[in-house]
């Protein structure tokens, strides 16, 4: 199962990069970035998965004494949690700039913004 999720994650990253590099509309580029972001998270969580084990939360189903033998690796999960929250922060920032660009220039096409091109 970790192979399935990992392959999906890698393919999502590739799809996201392709979309971000070929689309000319800024909003579409941001959408492609979120897709790639999801793919990275999927790969990271898949690395921590172990077959036949369960979630790292101790309760009646997983007593403390058996914890080390029953749970999966909690560290990638903690990292991905952080990554998702930062991801939405970055997306919000990009969207705010898109709004600003549109308000000043009235266009979403990246090829109209040539000031920084060289």
């Amino acid at each position: 199962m970790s192979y399935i999720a990992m392959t999906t994650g890698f393919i999502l990253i590739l799809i996201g990069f392709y979309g971000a590099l070929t689309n000319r509309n800024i909003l579409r580029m941001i959408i492609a970035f979120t897709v790639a972001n999801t793919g990275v998270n999927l790969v990271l969580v898949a690395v921590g998965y172990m077959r036949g084990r369960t979630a790292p939360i101790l309760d009646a189903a997983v007593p403390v004494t058996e914890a080390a033998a029953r749970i999966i690796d909690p560290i990638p999960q903690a990292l991905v949690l952080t990554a998702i929250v930062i991801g939405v922060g970055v997306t919000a920032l990009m969207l705010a700039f898109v709004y600003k660009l549109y308000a000043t220039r009235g266009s979403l096409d990246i090829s109209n913004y040539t000031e920084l091109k060289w």
Partner: protein
Amino acid sequence: MVDWLIHLAALFAGVAFLLALTRFIKGPSAADRVVAFDVLTIISITGIVLAALTEGRGIYLDVALVYALLSFLGVIVVARYLEGGF
């Protein structure tokens, strides 16, 4: 017996998922796709309940509550967008 029934239920849910996905891919207008999105979210709730049953972990159900909220808010956001409400 029960395992077999759970498998059958999962099969039905999977077919329903694929049908709703067909509508999501085809559906001519944005409203059609939102309906399909809503149905997909709710089928995912069923999927979560089935996963919780097979794993025997009741804590997964908290995620299902968040999904119910998500399906509601997602539809309302798109509906208000279609109306031009914000």
